[in-house]
Structures are given as C-alpha cells and as structure tokens.
C-alpha cells in the first residue's frame, strides 16, 4: 500500500513541471549568482596616490608601495590634488596617498620625510589595509636605516640578520584540507537552504488531497494513516536526495568543489532529506491552509539559513546568532558538509550531525502521525 502511494506521488511529481524550477533551477541560479558576486571579488586593494614631489626618492617610494602584494597603485593625472581631495570630502573617493613636494629633499638629507594620507572618516574599514600598508613601508624604511647604521659600525650581513630577527614569529599552519572559499560556503549553503523548500511542495500536496476529498475517500479503503503519511513522505525524501546530488555535482563540475568523502556526504544528504521532509510532514498536518504553510516554510527556511550559517560562514556570525543557529537543522547539515569538504571529515566525524538531523525528521513524523486524525477531520468529504 505504501509502495502504491509512493509510486503515485512520484508520477504526480514528475508531471508537476513547476517543482523542477523550485527545486533544481532556482538553486543553481543562486549558486551561480552568488559565486559570481563573491567568488570574483578582487582581493587586490586599489590605492590612489598623488606624487607632488616627482623626485627619484618619491618614485622609489611609489615603486616600493606598488611592490607590496595585494595592493595596486593608481594615479589620476587628469585631476588636480585639490579636486581629488574634494572627491574624498564628497564620498567619491575613500583615500588618497600624497607624496608632498619636498619629500625627496628631506629624505636625501636624512630628515624625517612625511607622506600624507587623506581619507574619508566614514570608510575606516576600507582604508584600514592602506594604513597598515603605509605603516609597513615606513617600518621597512626604518629597518633599512638600522641595517645601514649597523653595517657602518662594522657588522657583517649575518650578524645584522641575527640582530634584526624579531623576538616573536607567527607560524602559519593550516590544518584544513581545503581552504574556506566562496565555493565551499555557497554551494553547500544554498544546497541546504533550498532543500527546505520541498516543504512547500509537501504542504501543497497534502492540502490538495485534503481539499479534493481524496483523504476522505482513501479513509474508506483499508489504508492506515501511517501508510498514507509514509507513502507521501518517501517520494519527497527521494526528491531531496536527487536535488542535493544534482546541486553538489554542479558545484563540483562547474566550480571544482571538493566533495571529500562521498559516503559521508551521502550520509548527511540522506539525514538532511529525512529531516526537512519530516518537518514538512509535521507542518502539513499542523497548518490550516496552503498560505499559512508557505509562510511557515519561509520562516523556517530563511531563519535557519541566516542563523545556521548558510549565507555567511558560521564563525562570522554574532555569538547570540550562533547560539540560536545550533538549534537549527541547517546548522547541523552545513556543519557536517563543511566538516567533510573542508576539514576532510569522514562518517566518524559527522555521525552526530546525521543523528541529530534524522532525530528531527522522525520527531516531525511522530507529530504528523499524532495530528493525522485532526487533519483528516478537516478534509472535504
């Protein structure tokens, strides 16, 4: 009997063309769009400068600034210095490095030469890297002077290198198999987010059966309530599994997403499918109508996406939001997938995630089973 309902639902689902748009096409569009926006963001900071000195020393300074990785220097010869400062005041430009006239003379004479940084007070975040870069160059100049002094005092290069070595060094050790990137955030993030939209399809299908008199008619057959619920549940689990497979494969083929241990990914996908469709089952039995159901799906889907770390890396979220996020299934799904894809995790490291997701799904089914008689009582008959 369950098999008959499963087969019928799959047949109906295949004929519903709209389902494919919501479940497959739309998430692919989102992944492409957000990968394009965040994935192609240039990591190079552009530094606007104005050389009023135009001496060998000023050119050397600009060359030194331009040689720092991650920064690109740009000069606008078409505008005067005053016009460019005015651009900062009006918010058109965030900062401007000015090498003032006389810089070369002071530098050659050994006096303290100054460079000027004009900046928009409202753009602290954007200007911060430039300030750091300028301080770094100033430190390099200072180090150069010290080296020259030590050399003049008769120290050789090895001795100078020993004296100039900083007492503290930060060693960068990366424990992750793959670095956190736009792809490892966006592809699993949007995959997890969009699978929860299956709940709309579920609510709609249950309301269809309720309002057409189908539920009442089926109650006149030897069918039991759990036959009906499981029969309606399983096809949606299958849809979510196919949906996740398609979206993750898309990420792998188009963006080179590292899937990691496929068996572990499959476990999370299966658990996620049970979870979100279990909630869908519960929702369909609790809500009064389709519109109410859709509203709840939006809250669950969007709320979980924000707090569960689907849109932004979980670590970037405020502590309070992180605390809320841990109660969402989206967090456990995304955390599990990223454990596998970024940290090289296997089934042994994500089984708790899987267990939590399956437990949520089964709880949803239990509530749905308890509510079935009330649901059937409101059915058209």
């Amino acid at each position, binding site marked *: 009997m369950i098999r008959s309902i499963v087969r019928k639902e799959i*047949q109906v689902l295949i004929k519903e063309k709209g389902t494919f748009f919501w479940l497959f096409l739309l998430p692919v569009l989102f992944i492409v769009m957000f990968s394009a926006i965040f994935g192609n963001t240039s990591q190079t900071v552009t530094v606007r400068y104005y050389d009023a000195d135009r001496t060998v020393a000023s050119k050397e300074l600009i060359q030194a600034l331009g040689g720092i990785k991650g920064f690109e220097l740009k000069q606008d010869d078409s505008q005067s210095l005053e016009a460019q400062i005015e651009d900062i005041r009006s918010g058109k430009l965030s900062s401007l490095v000015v090498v003032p006239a006389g810089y070369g003379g002071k530098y050659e004479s050994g006096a303290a030469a100054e460079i000027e940084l004009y900046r928009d007070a409202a753009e602290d975040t954007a200007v911060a890297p430039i300030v750091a870069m300028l301080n770094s160059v100033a430190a390099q100049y200072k180090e150069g002077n010290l080296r020259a002094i030590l050399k003049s005092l008769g120290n050789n290069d090895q001795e100078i290198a020993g004296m100039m070595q900083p007492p503290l060094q930060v060693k960068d050790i990366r424990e992750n198999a793959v670095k956190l990137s736009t792809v490892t955030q966006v592809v699993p993030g949007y995959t997890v987010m969009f699978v929860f939209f299956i709940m709309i399809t579920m609510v709609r299908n249950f309301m269809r059966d309720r309002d057409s008199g189908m539920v009442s008619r089926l109650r*006149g057959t*030897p069918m039991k309530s759990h036959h009906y619920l499981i029969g309606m549940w399983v096809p949606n689990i299958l849809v979510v599994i196919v949906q996740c497979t398609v979206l993750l494969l898309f990420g792998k083929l188009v963006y080179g997403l590292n899937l990691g241990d496929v068996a572990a990914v499959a476990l999370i996908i299966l658990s996620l499918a049970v979870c979100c469709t279990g909630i869908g089952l519960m929702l369909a039995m609790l809500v009064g109508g389709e519109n109410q159901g859709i509203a709840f799906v939006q809250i669950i889907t969007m709320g979980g996406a924000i707090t569960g770390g689907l849109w932004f890396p979980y670590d970037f979220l405020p502590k309070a939001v992180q605390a809320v996020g841990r109660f969402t299934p989206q967090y456990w799904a995304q955390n599990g997938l990223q454990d596998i894809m970024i940290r090289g995790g296997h089934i042994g490291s994500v089984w708790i995630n899987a267990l939590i997701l399956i437990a949520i799904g089964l709880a949803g089914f239990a509530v749905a089973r308890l509510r079935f008689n009330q649901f059937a009582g409101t059915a*058209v008959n």
Partner: protein
Amino acid sequence: MSKVVLEVVQLTKQYGGKQALGGVSFQVKEGSCFGLLGPNGAGKSTTMKIITGILRADSGEALVMGQDMMKHADAVRHHIGYVPQEITLYDKLSARQNLTFFGEMYGVKGRELKSRIEEVLGQVGLADRAGEAVGSYSGGMKRRINFAAALLHHPKIVILDEPTVGIDPQSRNHIFEMIRSLRDSGMSVIYSTHYMEEVEALCDDIAIIDHGKVVVQGSLHELLEQYAVKAVYVEADRLEDEPSGAGVRSAVRSGRGWLLETERPLQTMQQISGWLEETGRTVRSLELKRPSLESVFLTLTGTSLRD
C-alpha cells in the same frame, strides 16, 4: 427472502452540538438498488460516510455482512466500494494510472488488477481514452472513472453519493446502465440523491430521510401506493376559477391549468370532462398525473424535496 447485506441500526451523529443524524435505521438486501432520498443537508452523506468508515457514529451500528463497521473496519472496508460526491482523481495522471492506484489501495494486484482495470474501463466506456490524463476529460467522463475506481475490488456493496451531479446525459446513461448491471450481477447498490426521478428509475427499495431521520422506507411500489397523491391536471379556455369534481380534495394552480388532488381520479376526470363540454370550453389538456416520490415527500414532510 433476500439476504440482508447492510443493516443500519439507530445511527446518531452530532457536529458541534448540531444533530446530523437522529437514529437512522434501514436495511439493504443483496442484489438490490437501495435509494436514500432526501433534500440537501438531510443526513444522507453523513449516513454513507459512517457506513464506509470515514466517519464514526456517536451511537448505533452499521452492520455490513453481519460485521459492525466500527468494530471490524478493516474487514468491512474490503466489502464496500465508495463513490464520493466529489471527483477524487489525480488530474495529472491517466485514467489507467488512477485506477491502478485505487485498485492497489483495495489490495488488488498484478494481473488481476490489470484485467479488472480493462473490465471496468469497458463498463464505463472509456477504454479507448484510458491513457489520457484525467484532467483532459469532461465532467461526465471523470464521474465515470470516479465510479469505476470503486469497483476494482469486487465489492459486495457499492455506495454512490450523488453520482450524477453536473454530468451530460450520455454519462448519466452509462452510470445508470452500470448500476443496473451491477445489481443484476448480485451486487447491492446504495444510491444517495435528491433527484427523485433517478430513484424512481433505478431503485427497488427506498428510504426517505429528512432532518437526520428516516421518514419512511419500503419498496418504491409500496410507497407510491401508500403515500403518493393521485391527481388530475386540466388546462382549458376560460378556466380562471377553481374547478370542482368528485373526490377533489384540493386544487392548485399549475402552469396554465389546475392540478386537482383527488381520491378518485377516474371519476374526477369524467366529471371535469363532462363539465367542460357542457360549458363549451376548449380543452387543451386533461390528464391523469402519475404518482411521484415528490408527492410522497410532500405528504410526509409537508415540504417540497427541492426546498
């Protein structure tokens, strides 16, 4: 005497304090067509849903083949085929897919199911369009498939709830023929409607239900004989005043003529005929009205069935 396949005993049901059924009782014989006649809201659908196990009665029994539906629902449901008032089919699926689904829900499988599907498709006259999506069918065709879906498991009793609402004459005839054929094959049919003509055309036994109670039940012949009012209709020139005659109990305007309720219709006709001739009136119509269930209902409840 025919075996009783369904015995409904003192069914009661309330919806939110409002009484829908107030002790409904009747019996259905094997191989008969039983008509449940009453106006909308009389309690027909509630009675049928209790018999099929969709609803639970507050008290009373519905004994199907001797087993109480409320106690042995699983066993009883295999004996019943229920055709609801609503068309409950999946529009996107073909008729064959819909029938496969319903057949399996009643536990029919494999070759037997395939053979039954072809059989019922032939009965409803839609074998040639069985592969098409039900959504492309006319209302009448959908009703026929809706009916067919309840027959796949060879039920002992088929319950039809207003199966001809909004359908074309061709589909109506198909459904009528199917009902007669099912009855002739030994199946019992319970037919709920508020169309008295349908009951008169199909049913052997009838229960008239109103305000959740069975007003009267018996064979069609018995009810008409016992309760139907005999009447004569007359239409003639210059017949503005109420005509009178032997045995006329009352006369009411009906169309362009008069409907005369009478105990002795033949004598009334004779008298009226003579009087019309004597007074030189041109007679346009003078006829004996056939007794109808409408008049039975009117006699017993004081209201029209269509009110």
